[in-house]
């Protein structure tokens, strides 16, 4: 049973990495939002499993927050926003999917190399979970870097935050208060970014962040 519970946790963490790769692969915005919702679902499953295994009821709250906020409310709201902005047909490719995926694999390898020797004395499963969480974080960053569209960048940012939560629950013992405050800060960030998006579009007629660069000073 012990072995099985560890394996399941492992599998769920691996599932997060897999869904991160699916986000990297998806180049249509609405598809990206659906995958992001799946990301959050896997996260909440993973957290709930940890709650059950560690018999830590407060983690169930975290799981519920992840499920309600990130798997339902934010994707639905973003969906709405995309439709209102009229960018749901946009297809963005920065550097092509193949190289991006290769880069993603490189990042996973990097996080393995960094984490596994660093936490050598921790028990092997926990440190591998930590390594997977770090991969999710790095992949989130990669999504942000390789996308031009502001909405995809938000999604990348939130998948990064999912990785943080995964790392925290795996490490046994992030206080609930921190958890909730992180979740709400993400929500606030989301609202602020959303407001900004509309302002940006009003101003520049696009939410392509590349376009914003053209208005910076000092550019030839």
């Amino acid at each position, binding site marked *: 049973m012990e072995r099985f519970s560890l394996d399941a946790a492992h599998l769920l963490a691996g599932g997060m990495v897999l869904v991160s790769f699916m986000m990297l692969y998806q180049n249509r915005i609405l598809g990206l939002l659906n995958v992001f919702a799946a990301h959050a679902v896997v996260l909440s499953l993973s957290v709930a499993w940890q709650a059950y295994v560690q018999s830590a009821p407060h983690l169930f709250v975290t799981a519920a927050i992840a499920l309600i906020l990130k798997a339902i409310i934010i994707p639905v709201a973003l969906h709405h926003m995309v439709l209102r902005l009229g960018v749901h047909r946009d297809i963005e490719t920065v550097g*092509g999917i193949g*190289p991006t995926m290769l880069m993603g694999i490189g990042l996973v390898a990097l996080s393995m190399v960094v984490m596994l020797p660093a936490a050598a004395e921790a028990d092997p499963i926990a440190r591998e979970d930590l390594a997977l969480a770090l991969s999710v974080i790095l992949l989130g960053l990669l999504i942000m870097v390789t996308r031009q569209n502001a909405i995809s960048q938000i999604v990348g940012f939130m998948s990064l935050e999912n990785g943080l939560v995964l790392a925290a629950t795996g490490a046994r013992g992030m206080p609930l208060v921190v958890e909730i405050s992180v979740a709400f800060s993400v929500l606030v960030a989301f609202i602020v970014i959303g407001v900004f998006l509309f302002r940006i579009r009003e101003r520049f007629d696009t939410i392509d962040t590349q376009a914003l660069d053209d208005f910076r000073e000092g550019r030839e």
Partner: protein
Amino acid sequence: MRDAENRRAGYVYLLMASFGTLMLLLAFGLLAGPDGDYAFSAIRTAEHVPWLAGLVLVLMLLGAGSKAGLVPLHVWLPLAHPAAPSHVSALMSGVMTKVAVYGFIRVVFDLAGEPAWWWAVLVLILGAGSAVLGVLHAVLQRDLKRLLAYSTVENIGIIFIGLGLGLAFKTNNMAGAAALAVTASIFHAFNHSLFKSLLFFGAGNVLTGSGERDIEKLGGLVHRMPETAYLFLGGCLAISALPPLNGFVSEWLILQAILLSPDLPQWALRFLVPASGAMLALAAALAAACFVRAFGITFLSRPRSPAAETAHEVSRWQIRAMYSLLVVCLIAGVFPGPFLDALSPVSQMLVAGAMPKQPILPHLSIIPISESRSSYSGFLVFFFIMMASWAAIRVIHNFASRAVRRAPPWDCGFPDASPVTQYTADSFAQPIRRVFGPIAFRAKISQTMPQPGDLAPARLTLSLRDLIWELIYTPIESAVLFAAERLNILQFLTIRSYLSLVFAALVLLLVLVATWA
């Protein structure tokens, strides 16, 4: 036109060959050390300083690599091999490159002492790079012989992947695995010499029979040159690593060796080995596409030029010589066991280990490590395929129908389509170019569309860049030119100045000798 090309090929070949020889000489000089004993036995017993041995490896990679055609030193090979007459090309690609491989193995495994783990990293990277880049170039070639030459680059890459694995296992004292990797790569070298010679002979037959080696102008040769078509098809099957022929056996063994490498302690190797496994698999799959294209465009479909229409079969003796090669290919694929056994003294000498003795019974299968891990019986596979197809033909012909009617092909209601409407070599390779081109060749496509009403033709421009040539050779070339221009003034000095130069050089050397001691 052809002459200018040949001259350039000769010039590049001359340069690269002398460069390679220089590197080899330096490597042997380092190995022999200050005592200057060049006998193998003396070098083998001598103590080698680790960094000097590393330098020897680098020099060998440059020297033997340039002779074998390892990327990025391969540039001469696709120029020189097609320029020679076909039987000479067969020797060059099939045998000469293997001499370089032999030299590399002899020095690095036998003479240079204990390898360090980074040697394997270097060899694996070069091997994997050669395998994929070589075959990507091959897929895009229109000249049949140049296509074969690029495919040699690919196969040399595969051989070096095996050697790199062998080095990795050897430094970590995994004798059995090292023996497997080294045996596999030597076996691949042997196999390659067989089917590459066969393919070059086939290309020579095509050239003799039709006078054409641009595959865009060939087609339909299967009707005019049926025997050559048989033989070339056999070569294509072997080189594409398809069972039950021999190319598959050696690549299968290399893949089995890769599966043993998670036990390696070095992190760099643990990441590099699966990556090179993926590159190897990619190269094998691309090679299959490449040879479907080579055979399909050259021998199948309808003739694309008068030369192809009037092609004729070559003489019987030329054909018979090729059959012997095909038969050896088949034997090596169906009964690989004895070949592997024959290589065991070699691996014993190189890595102090050998593959298990290959059993004759019960299935003539080959076993890399142990039977529960993996086994492959070329004979059974061959036998089953033959039996199954024979049974299918017999059953259908006897119990159903064997009637045949000839009719024109389906033309969508537009009869007498000209042969120009066929898929060409370029159009066959276009999807592959589109997927891999942007990464490997910085491929760029631009279209110019005339305005409506304008009678100018629409144009599609495709630019492919050989990055290795641009990034490595062009800078070297300009550096050499620059230096040559600076040194040019030395040609116009007085005799007194020349004498003083010689004198200065002599004094400098004497001072050097004096301070060295």
